[in-house]
């Protein structure tokens, strides 16, 4: 077995990111789509942490903190929108969310 290098982490990150992309593109349940986006953000985080580890520079980790903050903000607003939408249209199917107002 070979030594684990940053490349391994990057590959892992890329694979995770792709799974996230698949989720966003294939699923229609908006909540699952949101979770796929979280997966993609996590892929990015893994990449950042791995490189911060390699470079022995914590800037990468600082950005992870920001990413997590953004993810939290996104989840709060996004779920708020889902709830508001659901209350009016009674669906979480993204295909039916095709109007800007209701």
């Amino acid at each position, binding site marked *: 077995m070979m030594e684990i290098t940053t490349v391994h982490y990057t590959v892992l990150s890329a694979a995770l990111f792709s799974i996230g992309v698949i989720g966003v593109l294939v699923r229609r349940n908006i909540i699952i789509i949101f979770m796929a986006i979280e997966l993609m953000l996590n892929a990015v985080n893994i990449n950042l942490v791995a490189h911060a580890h390699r470079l022995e520079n914590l800037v990468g980790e600082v950005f992870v903190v920001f990413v997590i903050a953004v993810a939290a903000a996104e989840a709060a607003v996004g779920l708020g929108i889902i709830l508001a939408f659901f209350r009016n249209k009674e669906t979480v199917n993204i295909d*039916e969310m095709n109007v800007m107002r209701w």
Partner: protein
Amino acid sequence: MTTAPSPMFDTDELVINMGPQHPSTHGVLRLVLKLDGEKVKDVDVVMGYVHRGIEKLSENRDWTQIILLTDRMDYVAAATNNLGYCETVEKLMEIEVPRRARYIRTILAELQRIASHCLWLGTHAMDIGAMTVFLYAFRERELILDLFEEYCGARLTYNSMRVGGLPLDIPTGWDEKVRAFCDVMEAKVPEYEELLTNNRIWLERTRGIGVISAEDAIGLGLCGPPLRGSAVYRDVRKDEPYAAYDEFDFEVPLGTRGDTYDRYLIRLEEFRQSIRIIRQALDGLPEGPVMGKVPRLLKPKAGETYHAIESPKGELGYFIVSDGRATNPYRFRVRPPSFCNLQGLRPLVIGHLVADVVALIGTIDVVLGEVDR
């Protein structure tokens, strides 16, 4: 675009079946709550799970046997039920009850009121989460049950009165024990108050909860403490005195806001007033027989009457029709205070939260044996 709601979501309001097996519906009451989140939008009260047909049964029992059936209605205040029934028959037959019997009946009825309120206080506090009060109140109720046991041998269904008086005179020394109990009880009421009356959480849970105006309360036919909580001066003991209440001095506590807290304060004050009545009755207990002149075979003349007394829950009325020929009533009807008060539950509950529902069931003080009969 297509706005037809897809059928895959359940967006109806949450319908919750509270009861008939539920820890705080005080028996087998069933509430079908329609909730919006935690807020109650509508409630349907379903009852009848302990309907035993006491009215129908009574029409086929003779006048004395019915006393035993009345025990089974409000089973936490059986003596009050006995009293109401016996007085109604006495009114129908125009029987004079000896003064001593009327005094003892008053004592029994007031002891029963304390016992019933103890049970109410305990369960009501328990519903709101104050579990210690429950056991404190039951400790005192136990003393009353002991007194009743000594008087009539039973602890729950007393069968303690007869048409025309009482089956038994009080045992020797019983009055002293009642007096001692009054002293104990007087000391214990402040103990309950200490735990609840000024407790912040208790205030938040009961103040402004289930407010009902005096007009609505009268219109809905509420009676007893729920009616007095809305500042309506109505107490059968004062308005239409029965037993020996016209000879005693006592006050009828009234609420001001008509909320759960007021009803709580009223019942606590009734503890004190009941003790006051019992003491007066013991002080003035006359000598004499406890049974009036009653024909061997009870057979009232044809006629009908309605007579009400103030049970711990409210106005307990009996409507009895005699056809003058049979040894059983032609029609026997009970006006159950719990039933009428329970009717007030729906307007009280709507708009409140689920947690308040249990507090409001508690504040109405229902006994399902009486609601369903």
